[in-house]
């Protein structure tokens, strides 16, 4: 009864093309954003920030980028971890090599460098698709793993191979407490989510989706496949690169190439598959699911074992984690290939008619 669009008439096309066409949706999302900005910093403790909230936000941003490419443009990628690494290392180099480089400038330049790499490694997509493209993007992963390990210039000749960034500040605002780091990431993710939404409802987003759904027809109505595919690679890699830079700068502080290994690429791909391909919301849900599930299992399984009088070792928990994870992915692919976001959409559709479904 609460979720109704009755009486919400739209008299202009502008009103019909808003992000949220139903007023309840708009207030709900604004409420969540306000809660995240105002209430969460007061409620959460340091563990929450470090272990859950900050990784969740940054990985959501990366998942959003991957979703633009995989979910909206239909080009599969296994190189997301590499683009995160490019973003992180490029931002690091911009920060230390250019005097007076502001933090945000370095992060965005890191993203742009990653976008350039994305275009480069997206070129095979003009010729190959599906599994073959996945293998081609995997090359980006191995290339970057190698480059950041072996080419000392990227790591500023540090002897240990790891680099670190400290004293983050923006316009005199020193970001050091976990709550401040959280707010900084939250600001980024809100802006980028709005950008992603705008792009997907504009002509560029329609071009991506057209290429995804039926590339021959897309070309026949005048969409240039090269422009559509490479722009998707560029924008996606930009998002992922900025996420990588935030991951290095804000979450880790100091990192080495292993932080952006192929496992990270798979993790991001799982996020968009579980969350929902071709859905902005899905990127967030998927990231939340993948960040929180291991932590939940870590707490829950030993407790469950205790109830049953069994002792469950840490090794067993981490094995169980993999098993549960794998089976959930299989479950989702079979039952709901459009992910958690689709379940949410179905629930909303039902709710619109409830309690009179006929």
């Amino acid at each position, binding site marked *: 009864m609460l979720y109704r669009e009755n009486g919400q008439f739209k008299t202009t*096309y502008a009103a019909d093309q808003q992000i949220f066409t139903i007023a309840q949706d708009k207030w709900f999302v604004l409420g969540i954003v306000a809660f995240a900005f105002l209430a969460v910093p007061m409620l959460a403790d340091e563990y929450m920030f470090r272990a859950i909230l900050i990784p969740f936000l940054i990985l959501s941003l990366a998942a959003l980028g991957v979703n633009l490419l995989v979910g909206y443009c239909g080009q599969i990628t296994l190189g997301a971890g590499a683009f995160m690494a490019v973003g992180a290392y490029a931002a690091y180099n911009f920060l230390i090599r250019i005097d007076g480089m502001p933090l945000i400038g370095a992060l965005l330049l890191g993203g742009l460098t990653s976008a350039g790499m994305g275009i480069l490694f997206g070129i095979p997509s003009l010729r190959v698709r599906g599994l073959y493209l996945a293998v081609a993007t995997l090359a980006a992963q191995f290339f970057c793993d190698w480059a950041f390990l072996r080419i000392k210039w990227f790591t500023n000749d540090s002897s240990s191979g790891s680099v670190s960034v400290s004293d983050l500040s923006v316009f005199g605002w020193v970001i050091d407490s976990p709550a401040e780091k959280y707010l900084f990431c939250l600001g980024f993710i809100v802006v980028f989510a709005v950008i992603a939404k705008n792009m997907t409802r*504009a*002509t*560029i987003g329609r071009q991506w989706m*057209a290429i995804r*759904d039926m590339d*021959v027809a897309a070309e*026949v*109505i*005048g969409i240039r496949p090269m422009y559509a595919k490479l722009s998707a690679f560029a924008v996606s890699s930009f998002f992922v690169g900025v996420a990588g830079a935030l991951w290095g700068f804000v979450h880790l502080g100091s990192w080495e190439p292993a932080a952006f290994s192929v496992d990270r690429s798979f993790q991001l791909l799982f996020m968009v598959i579980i969350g929902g391909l071709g859905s902005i919301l899905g990127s967030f849900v998927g990231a939340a699911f993948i960040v929180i599930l291991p932590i939940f299992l870590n707490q829950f399984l030993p407790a469950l074992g205790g109830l049953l009088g069994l002792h469950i070792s840490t090794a067993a928990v981490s094995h169980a984690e993999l098993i549960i994870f794998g089976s959930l992915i299989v479950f989702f692919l079979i039952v709901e290939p459009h992910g958690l976001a689709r379940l949410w959409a179905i629930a909303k559709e039902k709710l619109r008619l409830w309690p009179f479904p006929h």
Partner: protein
Amino acid sequence: MSRKIGDVILDLQNISLRFGGVKALTDISFDIREHEVRAIIGPNGAGKSSMLNVINGVYHPQEGKIFYRGAERKKMEPHMAASTGIARTFQNIALFKGMSVLDNIMTGRTLKMKSNMLLQAMWFGPAQKEELAHRRKVEEIIDFLEIQHIRKTPVGRLPYGLQKRVDLGRALAMEPQILLLDEPMAGMNVEEKQDMCRFILDVNDQFGTTIVLIEHDMGVVMDISDRVVVLDYGKKIGDGLPDEVRSSPEVIKAYLGAGH
């Protein structure tokens, strides 16, 4: 009819197309005049769809020349053909399944949308204005095709007849000079066929669009087309007014077999 058939807009000369050893089209020549409804008919596998694919640049013929508005056309990709004003619909509906009817038709406007990607990302200024202006155009097409009630429905959920109509709408959104229709009435019932004929004739009449039509329903072809080309095994076996074609012995032979 009030419309006036103009000069030759597209002239195909000695087109031959091969896939490896298979000859899809052999030495085919015909022309298309401005504002006319030109039908291409022939048995299955005669090369009709290949002919359309040649016209809009999906296939590149090994031999032959294509003149578009008097100028020889170079080898071109489909999106370039689209930018010269050639649109088409597909035999097996090729809509974008994950998108709504509105978005599908909006993609037809892609070539006319020029705003910068950054402005689109901000949904700001010119990008937003452009989006609204094209929305208005698309709504006109939606009104024209009488599909207002399904504009927000994902096309995958629509019945076949409506999908065909959306396919036509997407092509119309390009405001084409030449509209290629590949079996627009296949698999439809009589009412749906009548609707589709009405839309095709209206498009031709109101917008002056030149129409090239592939269709198996002879009744429809004879009724709505101005001139007919007949293909069989990749060769042209007839060309002319519907009545001439119908009474041509070669055409009768191709359709009914020898011995009749």
